[in-house]
């Protein structure tokens, strides 16, 4: 299968890509070829990433930033070298990237830094928050960009507000002026919805927030893996993404923060490697990013994520985006033709990524997922950690197919055929 990018460049060679992913060659459920359409939950890893991590562990593994022996030097270089590569990949400088265990920790880091600033020095004043202050999110957020703010409000007495979602799954910006006001301290929103596929207007929201002096945070978990991004260029203050969704290891995520903000922000998790001076009576802290990386870091995982962004760059993010666009259009068309199937999210493919969620009249998502699984098609069913969004869309759960660079059109066909089979099995078609 081939797709062409908007720029008309050489399309992505899916066959060659698939050869790099050993797991895609396996079969499931009595010999069915695996059709992996769950990359929105977690992606698979190419040999290049597996090998980079293993090579590091078999040759250089040691504690970073600590030892003075050769292994420690090599490890530190590998770890910091990965930070440089990842920074370049998202349009940031290395000092602006903090390694976390997953994206979820990144949201919590900012949320706790904000409540911690109550008992920190003057430099942290701009992060302080309390009664009367507001945090604005959206109704389409993943729980990771929702619950930490509820908890922050609970700790500080601030108020949580949110944008609604339109019937076709777009952000409802009609009340932007009453939502983003002088009371707003932070606007946190997803760059690309993990359920709807909707790509939100990052620059518009950043501009609006800046106009009232509010900070911005983008949940980039579903954008960084799937499209070219430029954090510095976008003007966003913070952004968060996960290694395991972009061909990298589990156990590593990234928080991007503009340098001057990270410099003023109090720490979250504290302990070794993030200190400047420690006495029993009190401690001072290292500059960022070390200030936010307490304890032994995710060393080999950073190395793996470095290899992942190299892999993605070599394929080309534009090309990946174009490829997924083609798959998404095919899925929207194929599913759209089936009576009784309703897409939850934009029906057209403009400003839309490759997560396609849907419901089937008369077939519960769990049952649809089970039938698909029995055919080798791996999708996700449930609320995908976006429960309020599902309530808003009037459905308890959806079936979600999500695409990545290693999927091809035959897999979209398998999905569509599987949905028809589920309808047949449950007697609704």
């Amino acid at each position, binding site marked *: 299968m081939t797709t062409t990018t908007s720029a008309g460049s050489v399309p992505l060679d899916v066959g060659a890509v698939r050869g790099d992913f050993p797991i895609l060659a396996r079969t499931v459920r009595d010999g069915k070829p695996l059709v992996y359409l769950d990359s929105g939950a977690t992606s698979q890893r190419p040999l290049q990433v597996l090998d980079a991590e293993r090579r590091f562990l078999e040759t250089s593994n040691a504690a970073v930033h600590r030892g003075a022996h050769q292994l420690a030097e090599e490890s530190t270089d590998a770890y910091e070298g990965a930070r440089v590569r990842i920074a370049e990949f998202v349009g940031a400088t290395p000092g602006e990237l903090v390694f976390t265990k997953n994206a979820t920790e990144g949201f919590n880091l900012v949320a706790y830094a904000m409540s911690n600033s109550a008992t920190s020095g003057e430099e942290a004043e701009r992060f302080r928050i309390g009664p009367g202050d507001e945090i604005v999110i959206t109704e389409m957020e993943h729980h990771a960009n929702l619950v930490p703010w509820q908890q922050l409000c609970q700790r500080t007495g601030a108020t949580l507000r949110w944008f609604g979602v339109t019937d076709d799954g777009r952000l409802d910006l009609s009340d932007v002026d009453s939502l983003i006001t002088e009371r707003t301290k932070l606007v946190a929103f997803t760059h690309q919805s993990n359920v709807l596929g909707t790509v939100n207007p990052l620059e518009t929201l950043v501009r609006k927030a800046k106009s009232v002096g509010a900070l911005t945070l983008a949940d980039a978990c579903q954008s960084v893996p799937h499209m070219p991004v430029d954090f510095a260029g976008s003007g966003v203050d913070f952004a968060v993404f996960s290694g395991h969704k972009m061909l990298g290891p589990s156990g590593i995520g990234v928080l991007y923060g503009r340098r001057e903000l990270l410099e003023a922000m109090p720490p979250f998790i504290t302990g070794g490697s993030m200190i400047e001076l420690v006495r029993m009576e009190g401690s001072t802290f290292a500059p960022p990013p070390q200030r936010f990386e307490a304890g032994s870091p995710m060393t080999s995982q950073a190395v793996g994520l470095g290899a992942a962004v190299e892999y993605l760059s070599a394929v080309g993010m534009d090309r990946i985006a174009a490829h997924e666009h083609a798959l998404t259009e095919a899925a929207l068309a194929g599913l759209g033709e089936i009576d009784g199937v309703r897409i939850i999210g934009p029906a057209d493919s403009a400003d839309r990524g490759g997560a396609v969620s849907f419901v089937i009249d008369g077939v519960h998502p*769990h049952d649809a997922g089970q039938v698909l699984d029995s055919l080798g098609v791996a999708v996700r069913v449930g*609320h995908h950690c976006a429960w309020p969004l599902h309530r808003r869309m009037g459905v*308890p*759960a959806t079936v979600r197919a999500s695409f990545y660079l290693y999927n091809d059109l035959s897999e979209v066909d398998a999905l569509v055929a599987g949905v028809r089979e589920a309808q047949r099995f449950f007697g609704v078609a």
Partner: protein
Amino acid sequence: MYQEIILDHYKNPHGRGLRDPFDAESFQVNPTCGDEVTLRVSLDGDKVGDVSYEGQGCSISQASASVLTDLVVGHTVDEAMSTMEAFVELMQGRGQVEPDEDVLEDAVAFAGVAKYPARVKCALLGWMAFKDALTRTEANRRNGEAS
């Protein structure tokens, strides 16, 4: 895993709907998929007089609730509890437990579900509500006696 019996109960559920009067009600939700059940128990002496329920969920959770009413209504609370234990054991047995058809009747059809860990919670949703409602009934009784 979709035995004919399960599909039958799914399409024609027994005892569905919420009925009055009742002794206790329980609301249970499956946090991973959002499926819900509201279930009421009404006791008749030491027997389960009625179980009524409503909810949204997959074929497995709906059929399981339907089978539940068949198995417990008209039985003593003790009998119902031991049926429940047998069912829970079957569901958590990963397909290794041989179900006793005398005890579980139609519920033996769920043996295949036990091989799919992600669906076990679906099959147990109604039963967890039943268990919780019984606990509440007892608590209510004790409180009633105390006051």
